[in-house]
């Protein structure tokens, strides 16, 4: 799990207070209290099924999509509870991006994959430049510069995952959550993703 943020007020980028997540009546994680500093790479480690993904997805309200899930406690983002009733989950997800375990590019062109998030979030600037910068940041530009109109699904697994990262970077989130982004990849692709994470921390 990586975290990089433009530090604003509050000492921690994310802080949870006795967070419990339930799926129906099953309590998936119990009394989690973590504090995550901005501009750092923070990793969650644990055995399979221990609730890493659940915790991660709680940070940008992705668990809302599972109708049976329920959260108790507080998740503070720069000191503000993102589960407060007046908080719009769409805004939370815009500011806290996520990259999933399995690469899931849209069945659209590479360009559209990168630009779509910016488009729906009202990006007004030079879209071509944004796409290029995002793809460069995701270290994918050199491989796809000549085939931006081809399907995102035509790329290899590692390239797809970097495309998903580029897509996430393009909307300029303050935090990027990554859920085992390299688990489905070969060692070389994994290495590239890890380098990428290091570079993103610098920005």
């Amino acid at each position, binding site marked *: 799990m990586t975290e990089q943020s433009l530090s604003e007020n509050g000492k921690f980028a994310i802080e949870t207070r006795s967070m419990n997540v339930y799926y129906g009546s099953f309590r998936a994680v119990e009394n989690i209290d973590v504090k995550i500093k901005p501009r750092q790479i923070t990793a969650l480690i644990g055995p399979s099924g221990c609730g890493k993904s659940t915790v991660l997805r709680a940070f*940008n309200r*992705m668990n809302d*999509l599972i*109708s049976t899930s329920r959260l108790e406690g507080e998740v503070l983002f720069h000191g503000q509870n993102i589960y407060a009733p007046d908080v719009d989950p*769409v*805004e939370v*997800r*815009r*500011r806290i*991006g*996520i*990259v*999933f375990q*399995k690469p*899931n*590019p*849209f*069945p*659209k*062109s590479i360009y559209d994959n990168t630009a*779509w*998030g910016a488009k*729906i*979030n009202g990006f007004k600037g030079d879209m071509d430049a944004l796409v290029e910068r995002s793809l460069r940041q995701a270290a994918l530009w050199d491989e796809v510069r000549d085939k931006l109109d*081809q*399907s*995102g*699904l035509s790329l290899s697994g590692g390239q797809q995952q970097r495309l*998903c990262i580029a*897509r*996430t970077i393009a*909307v300029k989130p303050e935090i990027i959550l990554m859920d085992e982004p390299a688990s489905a990849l070969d060692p070389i692709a994994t290495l590239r993703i890890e380098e990428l994470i290091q570079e993103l921390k610098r920005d």
Partner: protein
Amino acid sequence: MSRNNTLDDDHYPHGKDFKAQITRRRRIGKVWRFIFYAATILAIIVLAVLLINVINQSFGLAAIQNEIPPDELVRDYQTGRMLSADNVVSSEDDQALAQSIGSLDNATGFFGYAFYRNNADTLHVLSVDGVTPTAETVQNGEYSLARPLYIYTSADIMTEKPQVAAFVNYYLDHAPEAVDTIGYFPAAPGDMEASRERVAEAQGAVAPDRINPGDYSGRIVATGSSTVYPITAAIAEGFKAEGFQDTIEVVSTGTSGGFNLFCVEGATGIDIINASRPISQLESEACKANDRQLIEIPIGMDALAIVVNSNNNFVTEISREELSQLFTSATSWADVNPDWPKAGILRYIPGQFNGTLDFFIDEVFIAELKDLPYESLVDILSANISTGLGRRFEQEQLFFEERLVFEDPVIFNELCAGEDPPEACLLPARDTENVLQLVRERVVVPVVVESWFLIDSILNRSEIILEAQAKYPGSEVEFYKWITPEFLKSPQSSQPELAGVRTAILGTLWVILITIAFAFPVGVGAAIYLEEYANGEKWYNQIIQTNINNLAGVPSIIYGMLGLAVFVRALEPITSGAIFGLVDDATTANGRTILSAGLTLGLLILPIVIISAQEAVRAVPNSLRQASYGLGATRWQTIWHHVLPNALPGILTGAIISMSRAIGETAPLVVIGASTFITADPTGPFSKFTVLPIQIFQWTTRPQGAFHNIAAAAIIALLILLLILNATAVIIRNRTSKRMV
């Protein structure tokens, strides 16, 4: 593991046992494969049988009886023109005609060449198209107003009855002189030689050089043409005079009568058929079907002489074009040819019951209905239909821009100036094709009296022709295609030969348009709501879901009852269009309209559309939704940009299937009251209508066979329409799914 045996042994079969075990597993697979294969084959066979059955009924031989045969119609018309010309005298007595022309300077006429020869001193024969009738020009076919004369017999008869063989040989020997005596021309020597060889071959022996009629006995019967009659009679006299003791019966029935007796009815006892024309293909086929092979023996030529008075010094030759004017429209000779004097023409022609007049008409005038000029077609039409019907046609479209045929000009002008002018006031005049069609439909009126299936028509062609000729004398048997472009273009009619499916096809298209326009958006919307918004755990949503699933299985007739109660009755002001002021006649307006039908069918397919759209939406991977939400998209953006585009192919597949179902539905439309007989094309959602399945259903319930043929043709039309609509939908689907990279 709770099994109590030890796991030290591996408990798997090895070696031979293993092989046997694999074989056993395979065998099960093979059995299933065979079952699936058989099921597939069965389905294909059923489909093929269905298609073959429909095609079998859509094509095939048909016996057609015309109220007035077209060639007779044309001949009557031309006869009428000839007999109603100025200064025309017609007589059955050719000698009287010859004498009259011989005594009047400006007279002209025509009759058999024999009569010209007998009066050559007072008459002058004209050459036609530059050819003078002589033995040579007649024999080699240059002189066009000539026809060959034949006798026909068969090899079997000649073998069975030696007296007939002897008579035929005697006939060949004596024909040239007999023909000459009577006034015809002899056949070409080559033809006679060929006939002799054909007869010898049929007999299986060369005829003796000299036949002694006294050596033979047994009756001889000859029948047929009245033109050939005198030749055969003269030769029979000679045969008897040379010693033949038995009777020779020569009867005059006309050529067609002779062939009909012998070939079609298969009458026995006829030995020789006299004919003034070659046997027709139909007659020949009928003969073959009766196992009778006829030999054709030319015996001479008959020629018409066009004559003028011998004092006439200005005309020696005439073209056929001029001939047709000379005997009809022209009043003076100068009308035909400006070089000729202005003297009036006196016409002397054979009577209308004489074969000579018919022959002249056939040779000189246009004989085919379709080749007639426009004016002639209009004349034929006006002579054969009632004035009332003529007025109706004229109000639909004029026959001539400059004059009226049926209508009174004053009344017609008033009509045009009136409030609701007939269409004819605006349209240009009809064309030949149009009037020809009217003549065919209203005057010729071809009626299919019996039809046969395609396979039967191919395998038993001869028997069918024979049967038709016997059952329906005067009918024509021809190969009939029931599905034609005409059939697709014509409206419904009470005559199966004229009926078409245009009204039904348009009705189907309109109804389907309404159905899709209603069911597709509502169905997809419902599916999106149920899949993306509704909480499936909630009891009310579960009830809705269960209801939709069950509605898909409700019999279609129940939707018909629903449509009747709701759309036709309760919502009548809306479905009849009355509320929008779109009804011409409020007293007859009711809710049995395209709109009601479309909405009813829309309800019928709605559950299918919803369920298939739900399946398609559910099949969109969740990872896409998560990716979308993860970028900060709202639910609607996720649905619109990702869920819908990715589900669209599946949604459209469901829509295609349900559209196909709607096109084929009959029961609910019967209940809501689709018209079973309607000739007016639907013009909008508030029109009365019929659809193809109802049309098919209605035709199959008719007792006349021809309606079953057009029902089969309509089934083909329905299948083709279905294929076209489905293909269009599939193409649209493939286009949309390709766009999403």
